[in-house]
């Protein structure tokens, strides 16, 4: 068995209002060339102006990945000619990347592993090209969109680890609210470097570029392990090259051999004076990093004693996890909170195809309803009905409960009066009780419910009936 060594380079578009170095909108659209300024076209005389929102989000991600940050924001130019690169150089970071030497913990079924991050840097995306048989078209909407590139150390051992890393990384992006990380929109793309070896030395590296989906990453790695094993089994050498993964055939194809690495003639971008990063500035960003999935999952399973399944469901989406934790902060017990969130809330989100904001029910509202059920002030059934109605009508559920008098009647004096009314009205049935038919108490519960439009506490009512009927 040869050892597999995989390193990943992950590109992710940041979610910002404007592009990285221009005032164009950073917005996904299918209409070509509408988010474009002279800067994105690389027209003569243009100058880049750095988007500090992108800088902050890149730094935030670097911090979430446990990287060290630089002392200043500095950009470099990567020089090469290609039609999707209007300036003839890409503004990127080599000298002082936003993050260095970090790690991200992944949880595999039987073990946990730290995937080491070599560096994270901020750069600009290129334009996109559409190729036709006789010509190609350029869409500059993507030109200049802020992009972070995360380069791992070659420390991933198989396709499953690679996919788990990508999933965990995507969750970090979404948790930190730096990107939607939607691979369908090309917002998250991945290059895979893979080599096989049966010694301590690294084998010959093969690079696979721009793989869009996680399942393709898995298939590409599996195919490439098989292919390289076959080559080595035959006693041949693996060629150092760039290969393309074809999603139709699920195979990789040679694109170009890599004789020598291209010289990109990097040098420091002279149009952007370095911006010093103060401790206060970095601390403010650090404060905005939410507790990440891994930490929450451990708290839910260990401290809250929730099942692994429920914990996973809760941490999957940061908004849901936050909502759940808010309920706990309103003195709802974790198990209780979990049960309401996973049934009523998640169920409604699916059914109504909306987000928490669209659901209208805040964690505060839900906590008050839960408390009423715990105090037997309202039945669980009624509580759910009220919540669904509240979502529908966009009104506070407590308001509905008050208006519709849905609060259970458990006031003893009220119930005693109502029970005696019912007993007076149906003396024949009281007689049946005296004849030993004790089950008729249920009939009286029904009568009291009728009088109170279902608001009477059934438990309390039955107790009182049993006492009062004996007095007859």
């Amino acid at each position, binding site marked *: 068995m040869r050892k597999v060594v995989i390193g990943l380079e992950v590109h992710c578009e940041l979610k910002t209002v404007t592009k990285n170095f221009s005032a164009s909108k950073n917005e996904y659209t299918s209409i070509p060339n509408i988010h474009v300024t002279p800067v994105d076209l690389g*027209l003569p*005389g243009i100058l880049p*102006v750095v988007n500090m929102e992108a800088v902050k989000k890149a730094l935030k991600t670097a911090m979430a990945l446990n990287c060290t940050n630089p002392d200043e924001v500095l950009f470099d130019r990567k020089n090469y*000619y290609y039609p999707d690169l209007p300036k*003839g150089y890409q503004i990127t970071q080599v000298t002082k990347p936003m993050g260095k030497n970090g790690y991200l913990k992944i949880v595999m079924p039987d073990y946990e592993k730290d995937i080491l991050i070599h560096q994270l840097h901020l750069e600009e995306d290129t334009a996109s090209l559409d190729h036709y048989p006789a010509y190609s078209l350029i869409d500059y909407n993507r030109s200049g969109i802020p992009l972070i590139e995360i380069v791992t150390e070659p420390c991933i051992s198989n396709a499953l680890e690679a996919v788990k890393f990508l999933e965990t990384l995507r969750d970090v992006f979404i948790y930190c609210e730096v990107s939607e990380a939607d691979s369908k929109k090309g917002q998250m793309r991945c290059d895979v470097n893979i080599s096989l070896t049966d010694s301590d030395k690294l084998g010959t590296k093969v690079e696979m570029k721009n793989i869009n989906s996680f399942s393709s990453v898995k298939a590409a790695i599996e195919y490439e392990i098989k292919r390289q094993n076959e080559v080595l089994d035959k006693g041949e050498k693996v060629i150092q090259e760039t290969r393309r993964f074809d999603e139709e055939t699920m195979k990789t194809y040679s694109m170009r051999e890599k004789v020598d690495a291209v010289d990109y*003639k990097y040098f420091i971008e*002279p149009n952007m004076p370095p911006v010093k990063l103060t401790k206060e500035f970095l601390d403010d960003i650090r404060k905005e990093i939410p507790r990440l999935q891994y930490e929450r999952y451990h708290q839910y399973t260990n401290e809250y004693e929730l099942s692994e399944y429920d914990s996973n469901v809760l941490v999957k989406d940061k908004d849901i996890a936050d909502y759940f934790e808010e309920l706990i902060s309103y003195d709802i017990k974790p198990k209780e909170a979990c049960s309401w969130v996973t049934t009523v809330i998640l169920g409604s989100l699916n059914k109504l195809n909306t987000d928490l904001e669209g659901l209208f029910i805040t964690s505060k509202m839900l906590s008050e309803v839960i408390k009423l059920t715990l105090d037997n002030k309202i039945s669980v059934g009624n509580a759910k009905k009220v919540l669904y109605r509240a979502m529908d009508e966009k009104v506070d559920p407590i308001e509905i409960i008050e208006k519709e008098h849905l609060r259970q009647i458990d006031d003893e004096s009220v119930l005693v009066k109502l029970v005696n009314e019912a007993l007076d009205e149906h003396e024949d049935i009281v007689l049946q009780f005296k004849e030993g038919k004790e089950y008729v108490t249920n009939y009286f519960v029904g009568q009291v419910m009728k009088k109170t439009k279902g608001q009477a506490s059934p438990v309390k009512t039955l107790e009182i009936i049993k006492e009062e009927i004996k007095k007859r």
Partner: protein
Amino acid sequence: MKSEILRLRKLLDENKTTGEELFKQAIAKNDKEINAFVTILDKYMHRGGKTLIDNIPYALKDNISTRGILTTACSNILKDYIPVYDATVYKKLKEAGAVLVGKTSMDELAMGGTGTTGNNGVVRNPWNKKRLIGGSSAGSAASVAMNLVPFSIGSDTGDSIRKPAAYGGIVGFKPTYGRISRYGLFAFASSLDHVGCFTKYVADAAIVTDIIKGYDPHDMTSLKDDDECYFDMLNNSVKGKKLFYFKDICDPKNYEDDDELVEILTKFKETIEKVKSLGIEVEEVEFPKELLLALYPTYMTISCAEATSNNSNLTGIQFGPRGEGTSVEEIMFDARTKGFSELIKRRFILGSYILQKENQEKLFKNAQRVRRLVVSKMEELFEKYDGLIMPSSGSIAPLFEDSSDKLSDKYLILENHLVIGNFGGFPSISIPSGIVNKMPISINITGRAKEDGLVLNLAYKIEEVLDFEKVGE
């Protein structure tokens, strides 16, 4: 006060002329043999502004982006390029009410110091058409030197405003790096590029700079507003100010076989005496000669490297003449092969070589280190002195057929010291100071970064005692 702008201002304010009349007069004065213009506007365009330059005609170098007006940088690769946006400097001038007369000839892509390398032919010196006016802002210098416009805008990466100003007997001012936005100036070498102006008199340079300076959100290297009016500072007292010049290099005794240079340096000494008469102290200072000798190679190394990258957008893909070929590489290759002159290609090859991974440390980074050494030596001197005063050039405007020995001290230092102003981003002004062989000579004053007002103030006072015009007659 000597000011061409104020003279015209008065005529306009007294209704003795109109903006349109001045515009037409300017065009009528154009001597086509000089070849100052790439484009002359066919229409008087004016947007009112209550400023001193309202309705005053001016010219703009052809590497400054003007929406809807051809801007070629005198390169074939941009021969039909019509920008879609306005450079900040042009926008400010438009808003101030100034009237654009035309776009001026230049060395191709601002690379060159002779005014002879543009794709529309050589630019001639109005003082003597057998002589060049220098570059790269050749046409901007010539348009003021031939009294066509009272001011013009140029760019200065090594000495591209101050040298042609010296050869043309006019004022050329390049303020502190970042004082004037570079947004819309076609980049040559971003860390050295400056926008500046040509005028007849120092006061005019102050008036124009007051209008075009200022912070620009489009240019991260632009300085915060200094909220000073340089025009108002012109008459400040200069008594007790201190200037210095480089000792050995300005000593006529070192160049006994060069009559012209001896005369220039002798006149420089006379100028120094006149400067002293203002109560300004002038001292000679030893400046490390190895640093002075390194100025030109350092400049070439840094500027070629940055230029290679800055001009990588010129591929004929987004704009410009489309090349021929069957692959994108071939198409870009063809466009660039046809689009640039040999001189430009030479600089790009140099720049590319300098930036190569294996050469960067030895060439590019060492050049940057030398640049820092020069700048810190200057800053050290600026602790004691308010400015450097030097002859702008070691020669009068050369004849077209002249060639100079590019490895002589005269060439390496006296012809290239102005680049110190670009290395440190120091404000630097050249003003005419006398006549040698019927051609103007000039002195240069370079001051501390951000002290543009003081440099103009010194230049204004010195201009008064030099009385160049009287000498010129």
